[in-house]
């Protein structure tokens, strides 16, 4: 069953995430990030950052919450067992640090077919408490074999 193209442009519930030290440390440990700026507030402050830095791919945490909303949207008609993560983009405006309060309103940026597969692009502009965009995340999920052609 092809995806519902009319959901292109649909926005989802705003996600808010306070960047907590414990979560950042756990994330850094899981990816093997040993750079002290990502492990310790003092090391980051010594270079002029406000606090311990979150690794550049930390916005994944928000993206996973965003994707969960999109994937579970009954109108979309996505079969999650057919989905793989095809592509990923980040545009970084500044490093994220412990204490940041981040908000993102995910939206379906695109839905298109190529060959037998369909592609679903989920985009989120992640802003800080001042409303400044700190990162734009764009995930392309690939839905295997659903392009149909009836």
């Amino acid at each position: 069953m092809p995806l519902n193209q009319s959901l292109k442009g649909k926005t989802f519930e705003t996600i808010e995430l306070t960047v907590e030290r414990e979560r950042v440390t756990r994330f850094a440990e899981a990816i093997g990030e040993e750079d002290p700026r990502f492990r310790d507030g003092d090391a980051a402050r010594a270079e002029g950052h406000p606090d311990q830095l979150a690794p550049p791919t930390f916005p994944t945490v928000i993206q996973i919450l965003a994707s969960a909303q999109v994937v579970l949207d009954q109108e979309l008609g996505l079969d999650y067992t057919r989905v793989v993560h095809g592509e990923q983009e980040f545009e970084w405006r500044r490093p994220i640090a412990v204490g940041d309060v981040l908000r993102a309103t995910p939206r379906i940026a695109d839905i298109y077919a190529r060959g037998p597969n369909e592609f679903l692009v989920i985009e989120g502009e992640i802003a800080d408490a001042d409303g400044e965009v700190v990162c734009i995340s764009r995930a392309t999920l690939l839905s295997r074999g659903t392009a149909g052609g009836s």
Partner: protein
Amino acid sequence: MGAAVAFDAVNVGDEVFSVPKVVKREDVKAYADASGDQNPLHQDDDFARSVGFPGIIAHGMFSMAHLVTALKDWVGDPAALRSISVQFRAVVYMDETLVARGRVASKDEGSGEVTLDLWADVERDGETIKAIKNSRALVRLDRK
């Protein structure tokens, strides 16, 4: 650590990093918990086999995180990172060695921006497989 690399020290065509990492089951489990991606494909061998894999696979984002760490370590300054775009092209199994690699694709004299080609390889059955390919990053380097 500030910006470790100067714009003028970088040449188009240079292979600037090649960083291996052994993908361990406990790290992939830790990544599931830290990222919130609890898809059983990354944790449950029986589930992975039921959908046609020999065992669990690493999250694409786990592999990408290794690539970005290698990129960031080369650049030195996390604030120098501008953007990245990657394509996941092959799965990665436990205990495989993922090698994150980067090569300078172009330089912009005006802006100080440098574009890199990125990819990540695994060796499997005597073949080199690109788990991540056709990928690019943009960084901004200081002149010196």
